């Protein structure tokens, strides 16, 4: 999928290297994106999560609706390399639609966390990408542009990008791979993400309790 998009964008600007750049970006983002599923139910309710940089802890930020309390507090987190770790929900905030998961006994060669940016510093029209598991397709990338710059602290990030269920909890990122949002929903065709600085504040507040 990423290759097809890369080819499309490659033809847009006449630079063959663009395709390679998008592939590199997809690879980079896939390292910080995990797949979250319930114990024993790999088919139902697959969502995405982001390996979040929180001191030396191995944590994952995702949407609260990806890890609903009805499914308990234990989930399986799978890296792009297929390594699986058990994760426990540390906190859920249904109003923000955010959840923080702590990994227990992560396997070796676990990837390093994402770098986090601020969507309020972007410009409308800037290219953004999303990585996730839309409709269960693992590690799929979509490319779009920032629809509007969030102008208030908690304004949601709106992107002109094609998302689907399964993108929830995954990263919305800039071309240098910086995560600027947690993809959360689709509204009127727009991809809606929680700004990364809000997710970061949520995660740090949870840990400081």
């Amino acid at each position, binding site marked *: 999928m990423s290759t097809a998009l890369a080819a499309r964008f490659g033809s*847009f600007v006449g630079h063959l*290297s663009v395709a390679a750049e998008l592939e590199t970006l997809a690879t980079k983002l896939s390292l910080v994106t995990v797949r979250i599923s319930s114990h024993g139910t790999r088919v139902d309710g697959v969502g995405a999560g982001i390996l979040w*940089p929180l001191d030396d802890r191995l944590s994952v930020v995702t949407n609260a609706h990806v890890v609903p309390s009805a499914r308990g507090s234990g989930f399986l987190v799978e890296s792009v390399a297929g390594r699986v770790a058990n994760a426990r929900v540390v906190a859920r905030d249904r109003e923000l639609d955010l959840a923080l998961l702590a990994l227990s006994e992560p396997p070796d060669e676990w990837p390093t966390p994402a770098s986090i940016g601020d969507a309020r510093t972007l410009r409308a029209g800037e290219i953004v990408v999303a990585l996730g598991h839309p409709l269960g397709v693992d590690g799929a990338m979509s490319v779009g542009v920032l629809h509007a710059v969030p*102008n208030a602290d908690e304004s949601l990030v709106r992107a002109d990008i094609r998302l689907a269920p399964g993108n929830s909890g995954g990263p919305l990122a800039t*071309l240098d*791979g910086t995560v600027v949002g947690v993809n959360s929903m689709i509204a009127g065709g727009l991809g809606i993400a929680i700004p990364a600085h809000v997710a970061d504040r949520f995660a740090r507040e949870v840990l400081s309790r």
Partner: protein
Amino acid sequence: MSAGKPASTTSTRSALRALSDDLASAVERASRSIVAIHARPRIPASGVYWREGIIVAASHTIRKEQDIAVTLPNGARAVAQLVGRDGGTDLAVLRFDTTPSKEVIALAGRVGGDALRVGSVVLAVGRPGDDGVTTSLGVISAVADKWRTWSGGEIDRFVRLDLSVYDGFSGGALVDADGGVLGVNCSALARGTPLTIPNTTVDRVVDALLTRGHVARAYLGVAMQPVRLTKALADRLQLGDSARGVLVVMVESESPADRAGLLVGDIIVAAGGTNVVEPQDIAELLGTERVGATLELSVVRGGERRALEVTIGERAPAAEGRRRGGRGS
């Protein structure tokens, strides 16, 4: 903000980065000419600063005509009045009470029609309210010749877009990768399909609305439907293979058609020297510039062929404004 062991970031200039910067700069440039228009409940619509003191908007988004609040690119509010509207092209023209300064708003930087090419990367730029400018990215998916909208408007080029339509699309600008304005966007002219009304058409409509307050719409005052003639009749009247025409099902009293003696039941088989097989064939002969001209009709009445001359009239603007969806001409 980040801590721990963030993934490394690269800062090399890349072709992709350059494209992204270009797109963002294009939006930034265009946004200086895009306003929000608060003339309907709930979601405000977009408008483009077209001429000194003049804004162009999508007519269907304008529900009030006086003291319309306009959000300028810098977030400040101004007041404008509706000058006129044209249901045919879904364009409306507003005039600022006080023309804002050049520092606050820039005239749309327009580019020529030859930039309308299939496959061109374009951005739809709008301002659906006070929260800043919005955009969506896509390409021009089709460009074709002059066409006529369902409500009778003439548009110089058919420009279809492949991009997502969000709030603020209609009345916003279509811009190229340099931020040059290619036209005014509208999703209400073809069942929600995103289209762009090219600059030349916008200019023509703006001229008409500023000088006359409406766009002259040529009309005959008949309702028609396509019919097929019997082969015997067609042979007798030597209509050749085209044994078809349009049946007059209504004649508006005191209309040009009425004055020319056209009757309900007449079958128009030719107009202006060409065969007529559907009402659209006649509509296409009724351009704005034809008002006052003579149109020769060949009709079948009582099994005989006869010629009629109709002086093309101008539809009263008030009736035109409220007309919805008719195929009458």
